[in-house]
């Protein structure tokens, strides 16, 4: 789960990482009030779960509360890379002397947390990594040994931070960032930029936080940061129903069991010349009700012209899937043609059930490839 900047900063604050004072606002009037309380100048920042906010006009300076209100009015409702802005973060503006970059993330290859730090912050960090890799200092932490203070000192030293006051502050931030990373079971904590003010104060000016969905069961205060309103309405409905659904932009609804097979099905539909409308994974052990729920989500998308069920039963039993399809056809008025391919556990029983009921808009296919071709053909008809 990705967190908004303001949520990440709230977590930074909890773990003793200095951030600027700010307020959340959902209306221009609230932004004005916030600016009044904080004292101007302030920065009004769009809160969306995507990058490129600055370029899209989502981060603006305001010299007065009235200006903050005006800027908030422009930013709220803005579309940034497909994300609509519903909230802005109003923060006391910072004077910036220098911009650094600090992050900790999972190094999946080494299977260890990895710190990355450079004094060339603020700009695209991938560019720094490519153009001057020696400037980007990396340091792994042994997950069993945990963090020790020398690691912060080493990062700061190797990156060439010279001011002793800065060295001390950053080393402390590095330690606190590790505590935040472990304490919130994060997959990524990124501070870009980590700024130094003209007074020599070090602060996190932005936050990028990704926490592990699998750990949320034991982190209730982080779990409640999930913003259901941010998701696509169909995706929100799917989440409510326990179906994994990602909206795509085509006409062939795709439903599979298991992420790998479903992803592969989306690929195959594309390779045979179709455009998938979605990725929808029933997951393991899907029962008839799960199939009904998934079909409900898929058919809400008006772009869908045909539906391809590609099921390979392992834990999932094909007769349950067949029952679900028949039940859904009973309960809902589905006019789109449905192509069904069943293999694996109880496939024979499943096919038999569908053959006996023989709904008019149901087409059985024997293989994944033929099923994809048929669904694409029917979507164009």
């Amino acid at each position, binding site marked *: 789960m990705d967190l908004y900047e303001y949520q990440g900063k709230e977590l930074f604050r909890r773990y003793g990482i200095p951030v600027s004072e700010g307020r959340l606002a959902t209306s221009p009037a609230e932004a004005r009030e916030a600016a009044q309380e904080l004292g101007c100048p302030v920065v009004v920042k769009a809160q969306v779960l995507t990058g490129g906010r600055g370029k899209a006009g989502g981060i603006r300076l305001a010299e007065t509360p009235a200006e903050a209100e005006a800027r908030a009015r422009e930013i709220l409702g803005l579309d940034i890379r497909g994300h609509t802005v519903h909230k802005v973060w109003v923060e006391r503006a910072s004077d910036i002397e220098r911009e650094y970059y600090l*992050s900790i*993330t*999972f*190094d*999946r*290859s080494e*299977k*260890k*947390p*990895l710190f*990355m730090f450079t004094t060339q912050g603020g700009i*695209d*960090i*991938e560019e720094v*990594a490519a153009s001057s890799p020696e400037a*980007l200092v990396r340091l792994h932490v042994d*997950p*069993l040994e945990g963090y020790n203070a020398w690691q912060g000192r080493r990062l700061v030293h190797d990156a060439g931070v010279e001011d002793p006051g800065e060295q001390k502050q950053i080393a402390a931030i590095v330690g606190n960032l590790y505590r935040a990373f*472990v304490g919130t*079971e994060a*997959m*990524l904590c*990124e501070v*870009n930029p980590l700024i130094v003010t003209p007074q020599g104060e070090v602060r996190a000016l932005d936050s*990028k936080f*990704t926490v*592990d969905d*699998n*750990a949320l*069961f*034991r982190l209730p205060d982080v779990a409640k940061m999930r913003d259901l309103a941010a998701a696509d309405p169909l995706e929100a409905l799917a989440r409510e129903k326990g179906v994994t659904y*990602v909206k*795509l932009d085509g006409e062939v609804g795709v439903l*599979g*069991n*298991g*992420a*790998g*097979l479903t*992803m*592969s099905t*989306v*690929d*195959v539909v*594309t*390779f045979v010349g179709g455009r*998938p409308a979605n*990725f929808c994974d029933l997951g*393991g052990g899907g029962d008839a009700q799960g199939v009904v729920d998934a079909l409900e989500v898929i058919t809400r998308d008006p772009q869908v012209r045909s539906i391809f069920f590609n099921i*390979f*039963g*392992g*834990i*999932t039993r094909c007769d349950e899937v067949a029952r679900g399809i028949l039940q859904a056809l009973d309960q809902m008025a589905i006019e789109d043609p449905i192509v069904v391919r069943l*293999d*694996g*556990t109880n496939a024979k029983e499943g096919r038999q059930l569908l053959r006996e009921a023989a709904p008019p808009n149901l087409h059985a296919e024997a*293989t*994944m*490839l033929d099923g994809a071709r048929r669904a694409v053909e029917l979507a164009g008809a």
Partner: protein
Amino acid sequence: MAIIVDSQTRLVVQGLTGSEGRFHGLRNRSHGTNVVAGVTPGKGGQDVDGIPVFDTVASAVRETEADTSMIFVPAPFAADAIYEAVASGIRTIVCITEGVPAHEMLRIHAFIRPRGVTLVGPNCPGALSPGKANVGIIPAEIFREGGVGLVSRSGTLTYQIGHELTQLGLGNSTIVGIGGDPVVGLSFVDVLGLFEADPQTEQVVMVGEIGGDEEEKAAAFIEAEMSKPVVAYIAGFTAPPGKTMGHAGAIISGSAGTAQAKKDALEAKGIRVGTTPTETAELVAEIARA
């Protein structure tokens, strides 16, 4: 031969008395796996269809000489179950449980490596050596014994490709689902190394997907270390850029983690990559005929 599990395997199921553990434990036994014990704290002394249940893994090992564990306990208890298995002398662990927190897995990985423990998973379908042993949830009836090693990050997609191979008359030495989580026990490279050393395995199919850089590392390993032919398939060519790990993730792997990047990395090392599961199976058949 075969890898990870075979006719010598003596299996203990942690969580045998739960509904999933029972169903799959018995299903594994019916496919010839030597299921010698179950473990559920507080249920020692009971049995599941004749399989004795113990309170601790240590007592199960002592009484039954179990050497391999399959874990079916709920996610909040899975890490504990892995540590208990290792502490009790188990050296091969297959963890089916889905939803184990990634930070737990970081610590577990650091813990098991120096101890020489083989961990498959978590969040994986397990390992099947057709005709010998099945440890996990892979439907054994769609596979047959043969010379193709199959390793995959996915469950059902593995079945799909295995099924296509069977349709072409090809069998498998072992099918290994390593799991799709960010941190898993055995990696592609580990399993490829095992297949290279296994006399029964003649060629290998590797089924990857978007994310991480396991496939890229596998490509380098295959070129440097493997004499047996490898065919690959990658899922997720048309996946939208969804869950990314921010900029930091891309820098570490030195690759975008996309299906195309993985395909390019593999093909650059002369490894053939099928565009569909069907074509992948056909490439394997072509090599088998040659």
